[in-house]
């Protein structure tokens, strides 16, 4: 049950394209990013970035901590794993199907 609620929050968080962009950006960065760094990258206001960061923080996709007056954001790898698991579910599904197709084709070949 908790697992499902967690997924619920995570997928709501990544539904927004800017938030997905922020995740990519923060994950690719060599160190923690400030709100200004992120706002500059996406051309949106600090207030808008703060709202997005709060959603991502609540979903456990990003961790943020205050250093003086600056809030620094880094990816939360454990939270992001939920998303990766979802994608890998698809990947496993299609991979399995590609293998099934091979067996089907090989079987069809030996019948004729």
């Amino acid at each position, binding site marked *: 049950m908790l697992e499902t609620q967690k997924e619920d929050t995570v*997928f709501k968080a990544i539904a927004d394209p800017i938030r*997905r962009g922020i995740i990519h950006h923060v994950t690719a960065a060599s160190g923690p990013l400030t709100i200004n760094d992120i706002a500059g990258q996406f051309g949106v206001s600090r207030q808008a970035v703060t709202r997005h960061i709060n959603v991502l923080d609540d979903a456990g996709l990003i961790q943020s901590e205050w250093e003086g007056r600056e809030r620094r954001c880094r990816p939360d790898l454990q939270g992001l794993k939920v998303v990766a698991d979802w994608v890998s579910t698809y990947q496993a599904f*299609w991979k*399995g199907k590609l293998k099934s*197709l091979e067996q089907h*084709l090989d079987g069809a070949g030996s019948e004729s």
Partner: protein
Amino acid sequence: MVETADTIKLSHFYSHSPEEVWKALSDEKAISKWFIQADFQPLVGYVYTFTHETTTITGEVLVANPPERLSYTWIVSGTAVSTVVTWDLQEKDGGTELTITHSGIEKYGDSAINMFNSFKQGWGHCISELETYLQ
């Protein structure tokens, strides 16, 4: 590396002609054998239905270009948003290089949750069976 990829793309080589692979992908009897119970016609605009236990997948054929490309929308029951599945066949070394692209996953948003759950319940065991078999 953690990814939030929006598109899944996988390729596999088959030692069978593109025509044979095409038939397996587009003939409803063949699809029902190796993939999923299917009501399917490779005709642009055809609304197909795939059924697996309580999960139904429907969609519309977007491209049917034998034996090179087959593409259709993919809508899982209980969700409103459509993704796109595309099969590309390329003749190679007397066989076929098949590439599947599943795109538009990012569009799911809220319905991703339903998708995830129905997928997990309906097909989860199917995937694990396949994985066990492959190991």
